[in-house]
């Protein structure tokens, strides 16, 4: 098989003696969507935060395109074109959409001052593609609806040419219409060759959107399966009982 885009090998992290992630190995290929499933507290978000630079692993190695990567903070992750859409969205509510989109990567004028007009223009452009109804460019994001806030967070990940995209429950706060929009976006990004880790609770959605699924329970990896080889019930069994279904394990 070709070199994976991302390989997280034997990752471990503990908080106060509790092993939140315990020797977990997952990988991701270009143009692939890998679902990460598990109960609350299974360690999905923690695992992924080691990739996005928010947490420092106690053990394990990360390889990007087969080369060992050192990710000690979110800025490092960004240099590897890893973008994350957090469950909490990680938006500064008091700032407008453009300021949030470019937070930490502001466009500056030749004098070194932030160029708000240029950033707003870029924001208008990308929002025109992602969410054409979006109009509140000068309002703080606290004044936006859940779906609009979500589209700002998505725009931030997409704008900077992500090659590896982490989506932590991207549809948790959305209505059916907006969930559909996110699904379409995932298909589109996948077609562009971007690798996506999708953290989700919803087994049906994982079955629909993902190529493979890795299931975690109590910080351990139960197993990784090809989605087309398993049923909803198989996945649920893995999540709830930690039981690996027959021999359908992916390579």
């Amino acid at each position, binding site marked *: 098989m070709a070199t994976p885009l991302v390989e997280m090998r034997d990752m471990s992290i503990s908080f106060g003696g509790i092993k939140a992630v315990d020797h977990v190995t997952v990988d991701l290929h270009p143009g692939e969507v890998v679902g990460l499933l598990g109960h609350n507290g299974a360690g999905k978000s923690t695992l992924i935060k080691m990739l996005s630079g928010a947490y420092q692993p106690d053990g394990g190695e990360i390889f990007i395109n087969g080369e060992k990567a050192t990710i000690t903070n979110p800025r490092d992750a960004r240099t590897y074109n890893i973008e994350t859409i957090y469950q909490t969205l990680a938006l*500064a509510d008091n700032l407008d959409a453009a300021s949030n989109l470019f937070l930490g990567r502001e466009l500056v004028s030749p004098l070194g001052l932030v160029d708000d007009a240029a950033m707003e223009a870029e924001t208008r452009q990308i929002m025109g593609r992602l969410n054409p109804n979006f109009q509140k460019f000068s309002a703080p994001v606290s004044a936006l609806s859940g779906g609009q806030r979500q589209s700002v967070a998505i725009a931030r990940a997409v704008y900077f040419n992500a090659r590896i995209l982490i989506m932590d429950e991207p549809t948790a706060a959305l209505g059916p219409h907006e969930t559909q929009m996110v699904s379409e976006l995932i298909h589109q990004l996948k077609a562009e060759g971007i690798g996506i880790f999708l953290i989700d609770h919803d087994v049906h959605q994982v079955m629909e959107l993902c190529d493979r699924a890795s299931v975690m329970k109590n910080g351990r990896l139960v197993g990784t399966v090809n989605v087309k080889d398993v049923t909803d019930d198989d996945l649920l069994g893995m999540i709830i009982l930690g039981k690996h279904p027959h021999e359908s394990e992916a390579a």
Partner: protein
Amino acid sequence: MTDTDIRPVPVSRKNPIQQLELDMRLLGMVGAFLVLCVGFDLITDGRFLTPRNIFNLTIQTVSVAIMACGMVFVIVTRHIDLSVGALLATCSAVMAMTQTAILPEMLGLGLNHPLTAPVTILVGLLTGTLIGAFHGWMVGYLMIPAFIVTLGGLLVWRNVGWFLTDGQTIGPLDQNFMIFGGINGTLGPTLSWILGGLAAVAAVILQWNGRRAKEKHGFSAKPMWAELTLSGIMVTTIMGFIWILNSYEIPTARLRRMFEARGEVMPEGFTDTYGLPISVLLLIAVAIAMTIIAKRTRLGRYIFATGGNPDAAELSGINTRLLTVKVFALMGALTALSAVVASSRLANHTNDIGTLDELRVIAAAVIGGTALAGGVGTIFGAILGALIMQSLQSGMAMVGVDAPYQNIVVGAVLVIAVWIDIVYRKRAGIN
């Protein structure tokens, strides 16, 4: 939950006030300030709004207003600084000893030597910045709450100042140093007019540059009449302010002494006016610099982002710990600058200099619309807050209200102002 309710609002439906795109909260504060001024003027039979009183009001406000600018950043990042009054005393003591003892004895620079004032101010700024950075390091890296760090600082620096001077009043200070003291250093009418004119031109150029930038990217600018109205208001305000300060005549006796000091005789019927005080010019420079930092630099953007959502800021790759050090260091530098103004206005360093200033500074920032929850605040608002507090205090003194009553009123105004702000934000749907 769909976006169908968010259609672009047709321009014609906005009322004229909205088209000006002014901040309604600031407008309300300006209104309150004007009502206050006119009210006191009526009660005092026109003694409040005289050039002389306005001149005094501005120079009395400078010290607190400079620090309030720094306090905005501190409060926006969800911290507090209770030590500014005490730190002001330490900076003032360091500068007093530098110019009266250390420089004359060690470098042989006497009082009033041209180098004394610049070196002294540099030493003072360095002291304030380092102590502020130290506070910020304890808050950011050692994770001690800012309230505790600066409460400790309040006790420490007040008494470090005492030790440096053995509790004595130090004076007189260097002549060149004292030009920052308000009435001891003014620009005179001609220079004031020139500066005012330049400022007015600069303000209008900046405004039109902003409009051009928006048009370049093809999104809606304000209607032309709104831009012109704003330009008009700005120019009128700047030139009006200069005109008022230029109308305050130097008393004849003082003028005569000034001529005598130069060994000349004052011509009969000679008059001159003070013009813009250098301390006020300093405040204006600080206000402009701080506004640029807040609105147009990455540092400012990160300060507000961190105040709005510290986790989001960190996940965006912002080093929020180092940011805390920078914010407190800036507060320290501005406190040192205030120490220059405060001690040169008194012409001495005294032990109790800056006492209770921390509370005035915090009150000014909060009355000016800085939210203690973080993420919200403006430099202009904080300065206006300082001006409102000072006007209340000196207005009441002028009316003849006893000192205890003055403090009761100021305290009540602080609480009521914040309450009105909360009600307004709820109504307007701003968090």
